């Protein structure tokens, strides 16, 4: 038996380890960027004070909210919901082929997969407001531009999540159907798609919630819906009307989210 202290005792791990050079560079770069950002925002006590005063003025003018144009507000809210529902419906339907082409286990060719993933990433990366601006140029002011923007935005979002789910599907059932002599499309629709349906439904419902929120703001750039009313009221300093619009948006969006999460809890 060798005595325990015959071997040199290994050193205790230090309490603090020096960060690596890369960590230092990242920290310094972030700090520099942060300070530069703060300075360019031009924050002075004077401006903050004035801002608080203006905010108070806005709130006192906004309350009580003016619901006298409730019919107009209701109609444009309906238009917003129409945009969201129509856009999401087309978006979800179109997402499915995109997702199938973009998933490693269903794509006809790896090159197709790469190209499709690139297209989906582009749709997702460009914000919906910018798509709306582009479509307003293409098809003019109004809900059609909003619908198109939501379709693109939904594909960018849904196709990615659908495809992740499709790639998780176990290969066994698909192999079993392949072994019966079935064609590729039958195998995909018979063995792979049914397994993803619950997840696809949940994702689709979530994208309805997302689309309602974005449809509200799309009106700000002229793509139809309640956003048009809101931006007009703000520009005309009709803050009480704007407040009414915001309250209606709040109620509708919350109601939609509640319904959607209720259905999702039933599906999953």
């Amino acid at each position: 038996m060798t005595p325990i202290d015959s071997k040199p005792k290994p050193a205790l791990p230090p309490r603090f380890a020096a960060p690596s050079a890369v960590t230092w560079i990242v920290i310094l770069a972030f700090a520099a960027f942060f300070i530069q950002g703060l300075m360019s925002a031009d924050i002075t006590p004077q401006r903050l004070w004035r801002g608080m005063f203006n905010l108070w003025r806005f709130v006192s003018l906004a309350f009580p909210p003016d619901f006298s144009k409730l019919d107009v507000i209701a109609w444009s809210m309906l238009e917003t919901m129409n945009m969201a529902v129509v856009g999401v419906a087309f978006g979800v339907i179109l997402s499915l082929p995109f997702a199938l082409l973009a998933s490693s286990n269903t794509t006809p060719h790896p090159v197709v997969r790469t190209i499709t993933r690139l297209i989906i990433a582009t749709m997702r990366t460009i914000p919906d407001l910018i798509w709306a601006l582009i479509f307003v140029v293409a098809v003019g002011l109004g809900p059609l531009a909003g619908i198109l923007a939501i379709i693109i935005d939904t594909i960018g979002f849904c196709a990615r999540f659908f495809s992740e789910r499709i790639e998780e599907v176990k290969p066994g059932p698909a192999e079993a159907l392949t072994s019966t002599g079935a064609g590729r499309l039958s195998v995909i629709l018979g063995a792979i798609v049914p397994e993803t349906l619950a997840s696809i439904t949940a994702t689709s419902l979530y994208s309805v919630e997302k689309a309602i929120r974005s449809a509200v703001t799309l009106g700000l750039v002229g793509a139809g819906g309640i956003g048009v009313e809101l931006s007009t009221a703000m520009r005309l300093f009709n803050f009480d009307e704007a407040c009414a619009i915001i309250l209606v948006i709040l109620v509708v969006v919350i109601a939609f989210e509640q319904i959607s999460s209720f259905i999702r809890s039933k599906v999953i």
Partner: protein
Amino acid sequence: MTAAPLPPAIEIHDLHKRYGDVHVLRGINLSVAPGEGVVLLGANGCGKSTLLRCLNRLTPHDGGTIAILGTEISTLKRAGLRAVRHQVGYVFQHFNLVPNVSVFQNVLFGALGRNRHGLLRTWSAFASAEDRDRAMTCLERVGLAEKAAARPSEISGGQQQRVAIARMLMQAPSIVVADEPIASLDPKAGREVLELLFRIVSEEGLTVLCTLHQLDLAAEFGQRIIGMKAGRIVVDGAAGDLPRADLDDLYHGAVRVDQPAGTVTADLVPA
């Protein structure tokens, strides 16, 4: 057995398959006559599953030839390959039923290869009355008619494998390939499933190639036993004639294909 008019059900000549550096199938030669019941034995990792997957090109092989009912499969185009696959019914270790659809629909899927319109005519709502009746008959034959509306997750493992057998029946193949069909089941359910499988195979007069891990069951159900070791066939004979020692030897020594010679069972020696 002289001058058989039929081509062999399965005829394999010098079959090779590699996964990267691992030489899985190292020159397999095998001929199975129509109607023959063959049990394939071998330790885990000896290449059995790969061999079975090569038979319908679920896994493409690298060298050698495989002929199913006289048709060489390695050069087949899509339609030809599908026609051959239709002749070979598979039963898998993990059942491979489609979850989220009913047991009945899973059986109907067996007809996928036969229908020209694929899924369109195999989906329960659009399937022909004849196919729907046939699927129900298949379920009756495996004793699960009353479970037709259930989901696969709602029935036991043994029942799921019986549904998989019903799907195979629906496919109406002439060859059955079963890859460890009872390895996921307890001994009692396993024996029931195996009895059902071999009863159906003999009633239909099918050729069967089935891998098993239980030597007793192999001797009981197989007419002919083939033993694989490290990617080669080392035992082949009528079930009654093979000495037990030969079969036991399949599980000792260098059995795996991913184990270089010389490191025999090194993992079992305490370090």
